């Protein structure tokens, strides 16, 4: 049986090829050398943990990486986050986090999310929109935002965060 014949639409939109690809072979799965900040994100519901490290210099996220254990959604989101933000100005983190959260909760569609970020981040929003499949699975939204919560805490100088706040 081919996938297209056996899958419900909502499962197909949740587990898109790009999500499975990042989930199985995550990018930047490491610790940033000489990182300037580090924070762990915990999802107390499942025990998943993701640790984000970043090096900030001249207002830029010079390097960003993550390690940890998690489901396909949380790992893929962390991986895509690291790709989207490497080399970007710091305020891109908050902008893309808001975009991802709105995409995942159904508050915004892709065009609306793109309109809310700097033009240079538009392509990143297009890719991150693959995460919006979780909107059909409310308990999984926390998986998609776990790494982002950790990143924001990291940049704010906190070392721990949870999806429960």
């Amino acid at each position: 049986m081919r996938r297209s014949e056996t899958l419900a639409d909502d499962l197909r939109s949740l587990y898109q090829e790009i999500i499975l690809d990042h989930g199985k072979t995550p990018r930047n799965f490491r610790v940033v050398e000489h990182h300037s900040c580090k924070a762990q994100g915990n999802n107390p519901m499942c025990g998943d943990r993701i640790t984000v490290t970043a090096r900030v210099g001249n207002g830029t996220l010079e390097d960003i990486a993550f390690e940890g254990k998690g489901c396909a959604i949380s790992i893929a989101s962390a991986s895509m986050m690291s790709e989207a933000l490497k080399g970007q100005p710091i305020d891109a983190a908050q902008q893309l986090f808001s975009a991802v959260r709105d995409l995942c909760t159904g508050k915004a569609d892709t065009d609306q999310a793109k309109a809310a970020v700097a033009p240079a981040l538009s392509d990143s929003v297009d890719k991150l929109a693959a995460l919006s499949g979780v909107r059909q699975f409310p308990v999984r939204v926390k998986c998609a935002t776990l790494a982002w919560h950790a990143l924001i805490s990291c940049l704010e100088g906190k070392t721990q965060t949870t999806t429960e706040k």
Partner: protein
Amino acid sequence: MNKQMTAPLAFDVQKVRADFPILAREVHGKPLVYLDSAASAQKPRQVIDTLTRVYSHEYANVHRGAYYLSETATAAYEAAREKVRGFINASSIKEVVFTKGATEAINLVAATWGRAFLKPGDEVVITAVEHHSNIVPWQLLRDATGCVLKIAPVNPDGSIDLVSFEQAIGPKTKLVAVAHVSNVLGTVLPVREVADIAHAHGAKLLLDGCQGIVHEHVDVQDLGCDFYVFSGHKLYGPTGIGVLWASLALLEAMPPYQGGGDMIDTVTFACTTWAPPPAKFEAGTPPIAQAIGLGAAIDYLNSLDRVAVAKHENALLRHAMSRLAQVPGVRLIGTAPGKAAVQSFVMEGAHPHDLATILDRSGVCVRAGHHCAQPLMEILGVTATTRASFALYNTMDEVDALITALHRAQEVLL
């Protein structure tokens, strides 16, 4: 149709299923396959009807009013206590304390018996397989009293050797608090032997019976424990009701838990004296309908051939273990001999949360996560497992539905 379904069965699972209205519903357009009874069991019509009847016709507060409805509500509430007494073969209803659940029952023992009788350096022994509800109350007690918490280790197959207990329990041990049956692994612990070891050192034994009461025959006098706790909602009863059993002598020696109405003998601003057990531990208006509902659940179980139920559950477990083991990439977690019908597993390349989401779309409800046993997960070297737990209303076909859904999940994820 597989062989198990066509063979004549002493236990008529279809007749039992007809008693559980929710089993007739669909989820995501698929028949409900409920394999999460270890988290909370579904309720038979007999329990649901009892709750409706109590609230519709028989409800009033208990132990207070000098009027007909209050008298009958009190009688029904106390009759439920007698049903619990009979079900666990306690020697007196005075030994049956209603709580809001097993968690509260354990916290009650820690807060009353523990704070009254434990001194710095005294030891509390638990095992590596405990639920958080049988870990955290003892950590709070440790912080309050300076007692020491010791852990009896678990074997890779999920069993716990008596030698582990013999090494962990010593002259300083005052309490051994262990699961009767592990909620993650299904292991039935050797509790009678543990009772002997504990008592040989003068220690008390508390059994967390949340899973044990469901799958095992419980006779608190025969088990030799000093405290036995369980929750009603895992025993096909309502939520918000649980039981603490302890010997009358222990309950009399323990200070009260919460202060309030119903637990007093006389109150003056200078001095208050306590009511005798169990009222001493039941301050405030209790969960009246829930207790009566638990009684109805016990009546329901007593109406069945429980030996046949146990055989049925064991057959489900054996079928699940053998079929799961044949799924590529699946590793069973918890393979101790003499298990209850609970099976955890992990699948290579598929996180339990992803599995549970995809299984749900096939109507199959399983638990994914750490099962409130994070220390055990760490020992097992996993962050989470998927757990299928089986109840008296599950069928061999439902086990097969789980396997089919797992194959489907592999198509999605791998």
